[in-house]
C-alpha cells in the first residue's frame, strides 16, 4: 500500500524538490544562501535606495567563494555543474536581481565568450583574474537603436594595417563603467566579431545611466567607442557571426531561469510571513480565503518554476538543452515571478511599497529582467517559430 505522509509540508519546498538535488548541489546552494543572508540582505535595501553597489568588495567576495565563471573548466574557475550555477543564481537573486546580474554578466557574458571563443593567450590573460574578481568584465551588444534586433547594430570595426579601429556606442551595459575589459561585438567585413577591449584604451568611455527605478543596485552604462584602436590579437578568433553573442545570451538566460525564481521565492516568503503576523478583524490575514488563494497561487508558481529550472539544469548538464528550451524557461519563469511579486505586494498592503520589505524592490527589478536578455515577446516568437516552423519576427 502506498504511504501518504500527513506531516505539514515545508511551505518553501512543498513538493520536496530538494530530493532531486545532489549533495554537492545542495552544498553550493547552502553556501550562497548563507552568504546572501549575511552579506547582502542586511544592506541591499539601502544600496538599492541610494543606487549604489560596493562592487569592489562584492567582486572580491564572489571571487573568493568561486561564483565568477563557476561553471567554466580551468583557468582558475571552479568547474561546477550547470545545475550548481543555476542554484547559485537562484540564491543570489533571492537577494536582488542586480546582484545576480553582476555575477551573470561576469561569468556568462564576459568570461564565457573568452573561454569559448578566445585564443589560449586571451584565456590566460583574462580568465584567472576575472575568476578572482580582480578584473571586471562587461558585454556590449545592445545599442540604443538595436535591441531585439541586434544584427542591425551600427558599431563597426575596420582594418587599419594589422590593427582594428572600432566606432560606435553600446547601451544598457551592466557593469559598463566599472569594467576593466569590455567584450564588444561589432560589424566587420567578415561578419560580427567580438573584441576584448581594455577599458583604459584611448577613445573608450562609459557614462552611467541614472534615474533608474529598477535594478538600482546595479551599474548600467552607455559605452562610447570613438576611434578605439586595438591590435588583431584582441579579436576573439573563434567566432564571426551572431552565434557568438547569442551563445553568451543563452548561458545568461539559463541563469535567469533560476534567478527569477529566487526573486519570486523571496516575495512569497515575505508575504507568507507577513500574512501570518498581520491581524485584521481579529485574526491573521492568512486566515482569509482571499489571502489563502494568493498564497497558494504564489507557492504553486514558485514550485512549478523551480521544477522547470531544475529540469533545464539537468538537460544542460546532459548536453541536451536546446536554446528554445532556454527561451521557455526565461519566458515562463520571469513572467510568473513578476506576477508573484505583484501578488505579494498586494498582501503586504501599504507596507508592500516600502523598502523595509524586499517585495517592491524585487517587483521593480523584475520589470528589467522581463525585458533584458530577450524580451518576453521575442522568446514568444522563438517558441512560436519552434512549434509552427513559421518565422513571425519579420
Amino acid at each position, binding site marked *: 500500500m502506498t504511504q501518504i505522509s500527513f506531516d505539514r509540508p515545508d511551505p518553501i519546498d512543498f513538493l520536496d524538490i530538494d530530493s532531486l538535488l545532489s549533495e554537492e548541489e545542495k552544498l553550493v546552494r547552502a553556501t550562497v544562501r548563507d552568504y546572501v543572508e549575511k552579506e547582502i540582505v542586511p544592506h541591499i535595501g539601502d544600496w538599492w535606495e541610494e543606487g549604489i553597489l560596493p562592487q569592489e568588495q562584492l567582486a572580491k567576495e564572489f571571487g573568493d567563494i568561486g561564483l565568477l565563471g563557476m561553471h567554466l573548466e580551468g583557468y582558475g574557475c571552479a*568547474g561546477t555543474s550547470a545545475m550548481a550555477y543555476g542554484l547559485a543564481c537562484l540564491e543570489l537573486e533571492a537577494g536582488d536581481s542586480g546582484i545576480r546580474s553582476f555575477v551573470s554578466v561576469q561569468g556568462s557574458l564576459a568570461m564565457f565568450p573568452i573561454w569559448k571563443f578566445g585564443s589560449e593567450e586571451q584565456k590566460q590573460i583574462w580568465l584567472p583574474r576575472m575568476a578572482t574578481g580582480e578584473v571586471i568584465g562587461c558585454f556590449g551588444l545592445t545599442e540604443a537603436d538595436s535591441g531585439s534586433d541586434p544584427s542591425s547594430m551600427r558599431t563597426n570595426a575596420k582594418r587599419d594595417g594589422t590593427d582594428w579601429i572600432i566606432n560606435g556606442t553600446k547601451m544598457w551595459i551592466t557593469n559598463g563603467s566599472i569594467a576593466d575589459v569590455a567584450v564588444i561585438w561589432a560589424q566587420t567585413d567578415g561578419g560580427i566579431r567580438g573584441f576584448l577591449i581594455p577599458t583604459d584604451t584611448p577613445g573608450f568611455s562609459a557614462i552611467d545611466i541614472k534615474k533608474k527605478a529598477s535594478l538600482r543596485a546595479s551599474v548600467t552604462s552607455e559605452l562610447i567607442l570613438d576611434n578605439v584602436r586595438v591590435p588583431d590579437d584582441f579579436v576573439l578568433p573563434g567566432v564571426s557571426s551572431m552565434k557568438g553573442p547569442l551563445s553568451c545570451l543563452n548561458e545568461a538566460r539559463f541563469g535567469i531561469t533560476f534567478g527569477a525564481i529566487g526573486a519570486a521565492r523571496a516575495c512569497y516568503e515575505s508575504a507568507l510571513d507577513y500574512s501570518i503576523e498581520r491581524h485584521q478583524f481579529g485574526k491573521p490575514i492568512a486566515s482569509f480565503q482571499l489571502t489563502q488563494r494568493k498564497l497558494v497561487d504564489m507557492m504553486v508558481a514558485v514550485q512549478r518554476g523551480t521544477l522547470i529550472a531544475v529540469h533545464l539544469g539537468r538537460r544542460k548538464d546532459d548536453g541536451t538543452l536546446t536554446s528554445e528550451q532556454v527561451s521557455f524557461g526565461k519566458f515562463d519563469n520571469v513572467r510568473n515571478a513578476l506576477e508573484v511579486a505583484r501578488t505579494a505586494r498586494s498582501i503586504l498592503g501599504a507596507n508592500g511599497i516600502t523598502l523595509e520589505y524586499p517585495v517592491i524592490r524585487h517587483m521593480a527589478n523584475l520589470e528589467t529582467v522581463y525585458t533584458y536578455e530577450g524580451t518576453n515577446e521575442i522568446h514568444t516568437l522563438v517558441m512560436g517559430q519552434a512549434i509552427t516552423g513559421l518565422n513571425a519576427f519579420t
Partner: protein
Amino acid sequence: MKVVVCIKQIPDPATPYTLEEGTNWLVRPDEQILDDGDRYGVEVGLQIAEANEGTVTLVSMGPSGNGQGVRQALAMGADKAILIEDDALRGSDALTTARALAAAIKEEGFDLIIAGTESTDGYSGVVPQMMAELLGVPALTYATKVEAGEGSVTIHRQTNAGYDVVNAALPALVAVTAGVVEPRYPTFKGIMDAKKKPVDNLSVADLGIEVTSDQTVASIAEATARTAGQKIEDEGEAHLAIVALLEERKVI
C-alpha cells in the same frame, strides 16, 4: 604542523528532533549537517595550518549518514577526515566518546588538537578535557583567541572578568568558543575537491578500545515554556517604568 580538528555531524537544528522510544537517544537522520559550533574550530585549525605549513585532519564520531556535514568541513579546506562509526558506540556517554576520539587521534598523530567547547545537540561540554587527559596533553579551554607557532600555543581564555592568557607547549588540545574567528564560506573549488579527499572509516575493533558506556538517559521532560514578556505602553512615562524594572533586578 599536524592539526587535528574534532567535528560532529548533527541533525539540522531547523528540523524537529526526535528521540528513540525506550533509550531516549537522539534519532540521527541520514542527512546531518556540520555542527555550527564546529565551523569555528575548523577555521582556527585551517588558519594555524596555513600559518605553519601544516595539515588539517578532521576526526568525527557518529553515524556517518551521507557524510554531508564532514564534506562541508572538507570543502572549507581540511585535508582529510577520519570517521569513527560503529553500532557499539550508539548512545555513548561523554567518556566513551572521548576514548574513541582519543584513540583515533593518537593513531593519526598530532601537534595540536582543536575542538569546539561543546556540541550543540548533546551539550555535555566535557569531551575535549577528557580527550586531553586520555592523551596526556594540556587542555586549553574556552579559547576566544588562539595563536600557535613553533612548539607552543597561546590562547585567551574567556573569564567572567575578561580573559586569561594561557600558554602551553605542544602537543596540546585547545577548545574554542563560538565566535572565536569568522568561519570562511566553503569555496566552490573546495566543494568540488571535497569529494576527492580521503575519508577513513574506523570501527571500535580498528581502534582497539573497549566500550563500556555507563550512562543511560533515565527520563526526559519538556523544557518549561518561556513566559511572555511584559509590554510597557509608552504614554510618555515608559522610561520611568523601564528604569524601575532595571533597578528592581539590580542591573543599574
